[in-house]
């Protein structure tokens, strides 16, 4: 802890927020806003999605699964992209916060990936006629889920937490190949999964009465990520400070 604190004071602007005390102050200020925005967006999104939005002309009421499934799948990719950026800045610039950000993000990403797989399965049975198929989209998301699990296992497998963070960072960067595969799998190959509706070139293939609750839920999930990230980072920092104090006490005693 001492070593990282002094090195962050010496270096340039990139390390401005690497100072744990300064970061904690900033996080403390952001926290109530992100928690409040999360509650508002998810409450409004769920209400609009489950009660106000119309049923689909083909899927009927089952379309409401989409309001959880699609934002969860987006977040699965977004959280991973974030972890990849953090891992790169850990490996290249030795940014002391980056390793903790990746570590704190992994369980959140895992949960979102699981939610996307689970709700997709629930939708698949009545619509497609099957819980699961091994098409390119479903399989690549399952691989993402396993990479997340591998990341959590690897980061805790080392006696020295910094070595664990570096090993997990390498794994994260290798797994980045999977992100474009997931995104474009429905365009590159024939899949059972339908192609993108919202990010389609031209007009979105989804009616605005269904698009609004979807976007609100996505925003709510993003604020959820920010909120949980702050909580987990705070806990990680306290834990590492405790470790340093224990080490110091052991050396003196």
């Amino acid at each position, binding site marked *: 802890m001492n070593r990282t604190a002094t090195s962050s004071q010496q270096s340039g602007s990139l390390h401005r927020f690497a100072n744990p005390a300064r970061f904690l102050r900033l996080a403390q200020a952001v926290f109530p806003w992100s928690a409040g925005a999360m509650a508002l967006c998810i409450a409004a999104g769920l209400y609009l999605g489950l009660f106000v939005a*119309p*049923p689909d*002309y*083909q899927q009927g009421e089952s379309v409401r699964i989409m309001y959880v499934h699609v934002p969860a799948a987006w977040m699965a990719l977004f959280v991973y992209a974030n972890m990849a950026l953090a891992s790169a800045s850990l490996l*290249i610039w030795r940014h002391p916060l980056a390793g903790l950000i990746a570590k704190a993000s992994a369980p959140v990403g895992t949960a979102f990936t699981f939610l996307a797989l689970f709700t997709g399965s629930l939708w698949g049975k009545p619509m*497609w006629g099957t819980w699961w198929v091994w098409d*390119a989209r479903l399989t690549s998301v399952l691989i993402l889920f396993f990479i997340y699990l591998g990341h959590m296992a690897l980061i805790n497998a080392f006696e020295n937490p910094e070595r664990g963070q570096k090993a997990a960072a390498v794994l994260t*960067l290798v797994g980045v190949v999977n992100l474009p595969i997931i995104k474009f799998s429905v365009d590159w190959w024939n899949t059972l999964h339908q192609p993108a509706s919202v990010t389609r070139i031209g007009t979105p293939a989804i009616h605005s*009465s269904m698009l609004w609750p979807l976007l609100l839920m996505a925003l709510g999930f993003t604020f959820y990520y920010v909120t949980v990230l702050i909580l987990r980072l705070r806990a990680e920092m306290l834990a590492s400070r405790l470790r340093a104090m224990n080490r110091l006490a052991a050396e003196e005693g």
Partner: protein
Amino acid sequence: MTRKRRRLYIVALGMLSLAVAAALVLTAFEDNLVFFYSPTDLKEKELPEGRLVRIGGLVEEESIQRGADNRVSFVVTDLSNSVPVTYQGILPDLFREGQGVVAQGSLGPDGVFVAREVLARHDENYMPPEVAEALRKSGEWRPAEESAAQ
């Protein structure tokens, strides 16, 4: 060259070679990555009889014939080629004329595809029933979907 810059180059080079490797592998395995063949693929590939494959396409208009014991026969088309399919079993709710379907089975000697499993494929369009109705009235509707919405 500073150490930071060297690490940056190493990471960038590593990512680049990974991307190239992934692209090569995915192109090489393209045939195994597609979930289904279209009727045109099926014709071009001339697969051996009895091999288990999936075909996908739209159910041709007015091609569904239902028999006893949940037997059903229909034609799967990609609008340039088509394959007759027979199936015995329960069809998914979305199965309609004009709907996208994926059927797993094998091609018989008579050119009829015997399906063991039929899945419905949903497209990327989401809209309320009234909008679908209005679109159909104004004629802004792909003919392939016409009967699917009924």
